[in-house]
């Protein structure tokens, strides 16, 4: 149907602007730099560790792992150990056992680990930046170049035109996240070997009554964990894309719209300090972007802030942005 051709139009425009290529190029460069850097620092850490411990820690990891397994087993059996810690202990034991069975040194980096960590690190700033590069001038660009006149004076209702742009953005978001995954896995594979996808990773952390609850902790294979991480990445991309899209519609200058959304993202870093004291900051979208932290349990537990909360807040922002964009675009007089 016509919407399909409209989306095709928009994708062709984006490709011709070379914008997508540019984003992918940035991804490639950054991932390569990260992988190379990690490789270097890993070599350095190994050297440091063996110097400090007086033993070549890398080779003796098996002994250490065995010892840890025994200790943990004792801990589980002991009548005095806390029930709440048993689950996380078991999980840790599974991981150690896997490493021993597969003969994988836990200090070693793998393509799978790198791929996952890359998205965990990128999700709150770098990924939004890439998305903004695509979305910021989707609408404002048409105003500044004047092409909006020819776009809108067609026998197509305005909302359909805007919808085609929005759906194009969603399509590109999937492509970017997918590409990040593939590029990270492939490039880091050259440095660290292409394995590690079956290693167990701990997840299942929950926030109960403002504290970290580890009773439901379990292991999932790395590929599944990675999939979850990248899915959260896509969700964040979707939300940030929607908000940036709305700003592009409201503010008809590309430069201004980029400036606005970038500064709110950066401000998020500072505002996160006030999360416990100033309740209203929790409802801002930029402090809820670190969804992958909920998966890995590496976050400061704050009363009321858990995965479901953050996802709901973000979804609310996305929906509001979409509504505002459409209402504004269809109603406004185009004076360009």
């Amino acid at each position: 149907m016509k919407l399909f051709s409209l989306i095709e139009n928009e994708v062709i425009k984006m490709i011709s602007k070379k914008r997508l290529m540019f984003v992918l190029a940035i991804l490639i460069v950054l991932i390569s730099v990260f992988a190379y850097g990690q490789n270097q620092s890993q070599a350095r850490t190994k050297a440091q560790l063996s110097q400090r411990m007086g033993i070549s820690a890398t080779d003796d990891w098996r002994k250490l792992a065995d010892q840890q397994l025994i200790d943990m087993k004792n801990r589980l059996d002991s009548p005095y150990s806390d029930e709440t810690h048993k689950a996380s202990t078991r999980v840790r034991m599974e991981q150690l056992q896997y490493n021993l069975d597969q003969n994988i040194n836990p200090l070693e980096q793998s393509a799978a680990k790198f791929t996952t960590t890359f998205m965990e690190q990128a999700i709150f700033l770098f990924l939004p930046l890439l998305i903004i590069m695509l979305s910021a001038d989707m609408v404002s660009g048409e105003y500044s170049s004047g092409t909006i006149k020819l776009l809108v004076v067609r026998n197509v209702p305005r909302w359909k035109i805007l919808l085609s742009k929005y759906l194009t953005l969603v399509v590109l978001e999937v492509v970017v996240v997918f590409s990040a995954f593939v590029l990270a896995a492939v490039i880091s594979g050259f440095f660290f070997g292409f394995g590690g996808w079956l290693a167990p990773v701990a997840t299942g952390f929950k926030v109960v009554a403002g504290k970290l609850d580890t009773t439901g902790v379990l292991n999932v294979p790395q590929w599944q964990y990675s999939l979850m991480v990248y899915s959260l990445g896509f969700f964040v991309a979707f939300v940030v894309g929607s908000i940036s899209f709305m700003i592009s519609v409201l503010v008809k200058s590309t430069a201004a719209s980029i400036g606005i959304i970038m500064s709110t993202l950066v401000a998020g870093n500072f505002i996160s300090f006030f999360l416990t004291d100033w309740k209203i900051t929790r409802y801002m979208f930029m402090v809820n972007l670190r969804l992958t932290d909920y998966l890995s349990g590496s976050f400061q537990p704050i009363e009321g802030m858990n995965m479901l909360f953050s996802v709901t807040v973000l979804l609310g922002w996305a929906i509001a942005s979409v509504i505002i964009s459409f209402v504004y675009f269809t109603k406004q007089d185009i004076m360009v």
Partner: protein
Amino acid sequence: MPQPAVLELTNLKKTIKGKEIVKGVNLTLYPSQIFGFLGPNGAGKTTTIRMIVGLIKPTEGSVTICGYSIAHDFVKALSNIGCIIESPDMYKYLTGMGNLLQFAAMDKTISQQRIKDVVEMVGLQHRVNDKVSTFSLGMRQRLGIAQAILSKPKLLILDEPTNGLDPAGITEFRNLIRKLAYEEGMAVFVSSHLLLEIQQMCDSVSIIKQGSVIKTANVQDILHDDRIEWQLDNPEKAIALLREHWAIEAVQLKKNTISSDIGQHPLDKINECFIKEGLALTYCSTKQNTLEDLFLDLTEGDEIV
């Protein structure tokens, strides 16, 4: 005319930021009509045109195209329009053909053959596959026209369409418009500052000033108003003589110049009379009325409000 109106503006009004820019415009356009829309800067021309194509929503009044109201039947109404608003802004990073394909994709009635035909019609067949960023102004204008007529619209709206074209191009354009209007039955609505162009191209014109249409007339009628201009030493006496002997009303233009429409009266007899009465006649000539005269007349002393 027996055919239904292609464009109907009914009491069209627009207020922007408290100021009433368009104060109630009424207009009707029929097929095969080439219509000129004139006015000084700030008169509300562009605003009116934008309301016709749906870029701006009227504060009051309605725009109907081929019977379809823009407010209620946007898609059907717009299916009958092709337009160029000020400069035709194309996607610079696409080729000429790429741009046309974009517009064709939005309208299923446009076939590949039609695109080819249109490209030939505007004379771009050799350059259409180059990026628009390499086009000259004239080429962009042609591409703009191409995009406007792609869907064989019943109403063609052109805002400053000959901007950037060289004289040959302007003539070509005029012929193309005539062809579209008379052979394909398109109604054409042209707004331009080039009064001579309008005069040569259009059948009828409207002049808008400060948001209201102050005159609508057929171009032929305007041009037939021939006037005579005399330069003499005593204009008042000449005016009195004309009134007395031939009941002709003359107006004094500049210091020693008078002008009047003498209709069927013989010019030689009038001149003879002037000289017999002792007037020193230094200059006498026929002045063909132009649109410019009419325009300046009507919009004289106008400030941009």
